[in-house]
């Protein structure tokens, strides 16, 4: 905390030295809609409460109307722009990058991008072109920032004030990590973690210990993991970690390391800041590496329409629609309440089931008279259900409480 340093002398030389030290040391819904009088929702109705900020240059191809710009590094998808289809289109996917997105110039020839595999019987370095010959798969997973829902916490939490939109359901195409491991003769017996490292810190010149995004996850995660080079059918955009990204299904976004340069099977967790001290779920007022890391995502759901973003709803039959995820387990059921959680009705899953790591859309058709309603959803997987309240924690991580995620609507 504050101590004698408070009184330290402030000369320009000393100050510049400090800076140097830091830099170097440091399914369709259309059918359903036809059966009920839902007020038509368009993304153009999105309510940009934060003003009319434009998009930063590196993502000027995204859909501005679908996005809430917290900063040029933190961009959220509007609640009403999620769930219009099962898969989130790239132009609507949120942005949360710890390091500046690498440019085409920094990346070079994408097929020559290199990733080294260590902690295996035969360590190797593969080019992207070589990886493409090892295996091929496509999988839908949920990408969700650890801090999605931070904006609901009552205590002062630093960081982007995400509500529901730091999440997306995405099709990835790439090579299964298991195929890569097999090509390297298998994992070393002593390994406990799969540790993935990005290289996007390198152009910054910052100290890797403080700036490198290197994340360790339990070794078991490799079985379903993949190295992805495509996102929703197009080459993985630089802004989302192109040309190659680790995908760890069921784990929070930070573990899906962008601009991937290395995967190592290790006995210990990485010692970089982004593993050791950041992304730890600690009590308010406390921090440290002894607290759980943001790994597996909990079961969660939220309403995507109608919401306060989509205007008033016409009285009569109303379709209440949302998305639900089971975390690392298949989501089993979703219940919906229109009275703030006093009573619940089971919703129907709609659209295709893309596997346990994708979210399911759900819908409940109900009849609402004019008035105001608090609409909530409550999802369950085989072992857990959403709690009513958030788990209070210092950094506002892993929020899956249903109450905060409810919406108030006006029916006329």
């Amino acid at each position: 905390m504050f101590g004698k340093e408070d009184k330290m002398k402030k000369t320009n030389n000393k100050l510049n030295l400090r800076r140097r030290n830091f830099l170097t040391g440091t399914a369709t819904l259309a059918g359903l809609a036809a059966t009920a009088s839902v007020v038509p929702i368009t993304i153009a109705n999105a309510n940009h409460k934060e003003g009319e900020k434009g998009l930063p240059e590196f993502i000027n191809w995204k859909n501005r109307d679908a996005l809430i710009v917290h900063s040029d590094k933190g961009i959220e998808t509007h609640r009403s722009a999620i769930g219009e289809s099962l898969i989130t289109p790239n132009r609507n996917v949120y942005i949360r990058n710890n390091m500046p997105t690498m440019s085409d110039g920094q990346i070079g020839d994408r097929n020559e991008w290199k990733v080294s595999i260590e902690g295996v019987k035969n360590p190797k370095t593969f080019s992207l072109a070589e990886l493409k010959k090892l295996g091929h798969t496509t999988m839908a997973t949920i990408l969700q920032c650890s801090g999605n829902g931070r904006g609901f916490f009552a205590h002062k939490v630093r960081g982007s004030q995400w509500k529901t939109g730091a999440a997306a359901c995405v099709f990835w195409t790439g090579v299964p990590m298991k195929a890569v491991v097999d090509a390297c003769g298998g994992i070393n017996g002593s390994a406990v973690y799969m540790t993935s490292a990005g290289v996007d810190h390198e152009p910054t010149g910052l100290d890797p210990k403080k700036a490198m995004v290197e994340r360790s996850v339990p070794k078991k995660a490799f079985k379903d993991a993949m190295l992805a080079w495509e996102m929703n059918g197009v080459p993985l955009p630089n802004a989302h970690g192109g040309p190659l990204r680790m995908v760890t299904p069921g784990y929070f976004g930070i573990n899906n390391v962008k601009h991937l340069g290395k995967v190592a099977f290790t006995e210990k967790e990485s010692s970089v800041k982004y593993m050791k001290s950041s992304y730890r779920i600690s009590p308010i007022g406390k921090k440290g590496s002894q607290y759980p890391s943001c790994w597996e995502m909990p079961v969660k759901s939220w309403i995507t329409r109608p919401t306060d973003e989509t205007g008033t709803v016409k009285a009569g039959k109303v379709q209440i629609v949302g998305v639900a995820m089971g975390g690392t387990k298949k989501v089993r059921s979703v219940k919906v309440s229109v009275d703030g959680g006093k009573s619940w009705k089971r919703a129907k899953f709609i659209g295709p089931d893309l596997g346990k790591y994708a979210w399911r859309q759900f819908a409940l058709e109900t009849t609402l008279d004019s008035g105001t309603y608090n609409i909530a959803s409550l999802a369950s997987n085989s072992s857990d259900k959403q709690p009513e309240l958030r788990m209070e924690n210092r950094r506002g991580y892993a929020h899956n409480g249903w109450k905060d995620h409810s919406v108030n609507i006006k029916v006329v």
Partner: protein
Amino acid sequence: MKILKFLLFTIVVFILNFQVAFSDEEKMKKGLEIFNETAGCAGCHILKAAGAEGNIGPNLDTVSVTKEYIVEMVTWGLGVMPAYGEEGILTKEEIDIVSFYVANSAGK
């Protein structure tokens, strides 16, 4: 005697709490110096008013935050951003001044 002790105590407390009161104009000048030199914020952030073109942290011209929020961020850091207060890199007074400067310069 009691009165003397009380007066002495009051004087000591006054001295301990004495701070140079900078005018807003002085804060802006000193804040710019801290931003660009002392703390090196310019190395990581864009802030047109300071001529800063860093691209590691958020572009400060695009964020809408209060001075109080900036004080929190500078004091405790976030991600790769150092905890300037917690680590004793800046004094409380410097943090207050640079936060005042950023809050009143962003987007201008």
